[in-house]
C-alpha cells in the first residue's frame, strides 16, 4: 500500500512540474469550453434573442406594404434596416456586402394595388434550410397580411358573427408550446451551448492524458527506470496500476474543474450556466469508464511508440480524429445522417453520450450503463494489449 503512495507522490510531482502537461490537461480544455460555449451560444439559442438582420427597401410605400413589414417586425425574429425607396438593386447588393447583411427584402411598387411583388436577395453563404424557413415565414405572413387587409372594415360583421379579429390575427407560434424531453421524468432542460461544450471538451481533455502519460512512460523505459523498477521485483501489473491510479485521479480533477468552469466561469463571461444532472452515481460511472478507456489508450500508445515525439504525434492525431468523428468538435446533431452513424465508431462519442445523458437528459446509472460498459470493455482490450506488449518488450 505504501508503495502506491510513493508512486502517486512521484507522478504528481513530475506532472506538477511539467508546464506543458498541465497546459494540455487543464488549460486547453478550459479554454475550449469557454470559447465554444460562447461561440456556439446562438446555435442553441431558443428565445430568438439573436435577430436576423435584413435590409428592407419599401418601393411601394402603400398601406399594405407598410402593414406587411410591420407584421414581420412584430415577430421579433428580424432586425429590419430600412433604406431609401429610390435605391437600386446594385446599391442594395453593395450595402449587403459592406455591412454584412445576408438578406435584403425589396417590396416592389404596386404591392398594395395588385398582386404583391417582392424580391428577396440572398447571399450565397446562406444555407438552404435558413433560406427556406425565411421564405416560408415571409409567405405565411404575406397571406396573413392579405387576409387582414381584406377583413379591414368588416369588424362589425365579424363581431356580430362572434369572431375575435385580434385572436384570429395573433402570431401562430404562440399557439404552439415547446417542451424539451429528457430521460429523467421529473425535469426538463433547455439545451444550451455550455451543456454541449462541457461534456464534449471534458471527454476530449480526459483522452489527452495520452501526452503526459506516454511521455513519462517512454522516458522511464528509454532511460532504464523501468529496468530498475523491474529489478526491484515490481511486476508489470503493478507498473501499469502505478499509471492507472494517478491518471484516474487526474481525470477526476478534470471532471470537477470543467464542471466548475461550466457552472461559475461561463456565466461570468455572458454564457449560460451549466446545470448538473441528478445522478452522481451515473456521473461517477461514466467518468470511471471514460477514464479507464482513455488511460488504457494512453498506455497502449506509450507501449508501441519508440520516442516521446512518436507518442505525441500518434496520440494527438488519434485524439483529434476520434474527437472530430465523435461529436466533440462539431455537435452530432448538425452532422448528416451518415456521419452520425459513423460517429458510433469513436469511443469519445460513447463517453460524450454518457455525459450528455447525465448533464442534458437527466439520466441515471442505468441510462449510462451501455456507454460505460462499451468504454470499459474497449479499455480492457487496450489494457490487456498493453500488458502483453510491455511484458514482451521487457522480456519478462
Amino acid at each position: 500500500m505504501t508503495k502506491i503512495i510513493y508512486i502517486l507522490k512521484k507522478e504528481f510531482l513530475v506532472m506538477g512540474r511539467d508546464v506543458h502537461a498541465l497546459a494540455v490537461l487543464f488549460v486547453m480544455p478550459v479554454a475550449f469550453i469557454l470559447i465554444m460555449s460562447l461561440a456556439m451560444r446562438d446555435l442553441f439559442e431558443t428565445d430568438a434573442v439573436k435577430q436576423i438582420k435584413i435590409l428592407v427597401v419599401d418601393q411601394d410605400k402603400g398601406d399594405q406594404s407598410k402593414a406587411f413589414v410591420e407584421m414581420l417586425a412584430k415577430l421579433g425574429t428580424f432586425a429590419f434596416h430600412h433604406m431609401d425607396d429610390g435605391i437600386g438593386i446594385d446599391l442594395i447588393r453593395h450595402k449587403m456586402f459592406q455591412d454584412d447583411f445576408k438578406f435584403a427584402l425589396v417590396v416592389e411598387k404596386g404591392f398594395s394595388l395588385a398582386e404583391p411583388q417582392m424580391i428577396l436577395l440572398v447571399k450565397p453563404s446562406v444555407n438552404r434550410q435558413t433560406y427556406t424557413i425565411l421564405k416560408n415565414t415571409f409567405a405565411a405572413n404575406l397571406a396573413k397580411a392579405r387576409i387582414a387587409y381584406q377583413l379591414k372594415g368588416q369588424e362589425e360583421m365579424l363581431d356580430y358573427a362572434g369572431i375575435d379579429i385580434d385572436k384570429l390575427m395573433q402570431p401562430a407560434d404562440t399557439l404552439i408550446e415547446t417542451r424539451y424531453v429528457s430521460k429523467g421524468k421529473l425535469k426538463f432542460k433547455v439545451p444550451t451551448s455550455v451543456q454541449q461544450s462541457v461534456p464534449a471538451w471534458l471527454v476530449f481533455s480526459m483522452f489527452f492524458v495520452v501526452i503526459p502519460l506516454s511521455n513519462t512512460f517512454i522516458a522511464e523505459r528509454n532511460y532504464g527506470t523501468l529496468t530498475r523498477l523491474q529489478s526491484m521485483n515490481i511486476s508489470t501489473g503493478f507498473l501499469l496500476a502505478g499509471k492507472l491510479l494517478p491518471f484516474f485521479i487526474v481525470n477526476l480533477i478534470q471532471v470537477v474543474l470543467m464542471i466548475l468552469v461550466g457552472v461559475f466561469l461561463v456565466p461570468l463571461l455572458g454564457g449560460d450556466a451549466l446545470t448538473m444532472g441528478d445522478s452522481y452515481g451515473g456521473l461517477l460511472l461514466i467518468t470511471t469508464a471514460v477514464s479507464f478507456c482513455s488511460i488504457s489508450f494512453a498506455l497502449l500508445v506509450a507501449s508501441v511508440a519508440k520516442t516521446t515525439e512518436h507518442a505525441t504525434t500518434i496520440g494527438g492525431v488519434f485524439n483529434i480524429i476520434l474527437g472530430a468523428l465523435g461529436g466533440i468538435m462539431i455537435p452530432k446533431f448538425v452532422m448528416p445522417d451518415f456521419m452520425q452513424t459513423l460517429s458510433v465508431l469513436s469511443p469519445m462519442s460513447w463517453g460524450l453520450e454518457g455525459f450528455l445523458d447525465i448533464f442534458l437528459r437527466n439520466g441515471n446509472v442505468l441510462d449510462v450503463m451501455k456507454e460505460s460498459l462499451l468504454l470499459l470493455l474497449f479499455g480492457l482490450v487496450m489494457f490487456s494489449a498493453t500488458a502483453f506488449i510491455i511484458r514482451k518488450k521487457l522480456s519478462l
Partner: protein
Amino acid sequence: MIEINHLYKSYGKQLVLEDINLSIQKGVITGLLGPNGAGKTTLVSVLIGIMARDHGEIVIDGLNLDHSLSEIQTICSIVPQNLAIYPMLSAYENLEYFGGLQGLKGQTLKARIEYCSEVASLQSFLSKRVHKFSGGMKRRLNLAIGLLNNPRILYLDEPTVGVDTQSRNYILETIKKINREEGTTIIYTSHYMEEIEQVSDMIAIIDEGRLILNGPKQAILKQDFKVSIRVCELSNALLDRFKGIKAARVLDDCILLTKDDNFNDNLIEIFSALKSHAVEVVDFDSRDKNLETLFLKLTRKSLRDA
C-alpha cells in the same frame, strides 16, 4: 556467490550469450570486460532476473534464479547503464521514491537516504532538482539509488559513461570502498580497460556472447603469452593435439603459447603439427602483451570501437 552454468540467450535467431560458465566468489569485484554489443548488459539483465534466458542454470547465494527470483532481487541491486532517475525530481525525492518502492519507510528510509547520499557525496544537493546536476552528479545519484537496499550483490553496468575523470575516479573509489566496508559482491561491466584494471579482483572477458577469458586479475595480467599464432582453421585432431601442451591455449583460430621451460620444444611441436596438417599460418606475434593488447589479440577488436 554466483554460479552460472551453460547459459544461453538469444534475441530471435541471434545468439547473444553462448555457453557462459562463470563462478563469482562472495565479496569480490568482478570486472566484466568486453566491447560494445559483446553481451555484458544482457548477461547482467539475465542475472538480475529482468530478462529471460534460453537455457542454463543460475544459482545466486544458494538460491536458484528460476525458483527464488523475488528473494534474489531483494539481495541484489543494479545501477543501469542509463541514468535511471527522474530529472524533474530532486535527489532526495528520487532516493525516497526508489527506496519506498523497495519497501523502506520511516526512519529506516531516511537513514538509508542519508547514508547513500553521503557515500555518493550528494548531501549538499539533496533538495536540488536533478536536471540541474552535472553529468558526474547524476552518475553518483544513479549509484546512490543502487545502494538503497543495502545489496549483497551489486551489478554496475558501465557506471561511468560520460563523466569527467574526477567523477570517474570518485565513483571507482566509492565502489572499492563499498566492497571493502560492506563486503558487497560487485559485478562491474565496462569497456574501459583501465577501469577494470583499477577496480577488479577478478576479470572476465566476453566477446560476441562468449566468455573468452576468466580468472584473477593478477594472474591474467601476468599471463605472458610470448607467442600468438593465428591460423586459417584448426581441425579437431589438431585441437586434441594442442590440448596436450600445457602452456598452450587455443581460442578459435588463435594459439597462445606461454613461455616456460619447454618453450622451444612446444613451439617446434606446434609448427610441426601445423605443417603436417598443411595449416596456413596467418599471423605470428611474439611481443609482450598487457590486457589491452591481449584483448585485441583474442578478439581482433578494439574495446572501444567494436
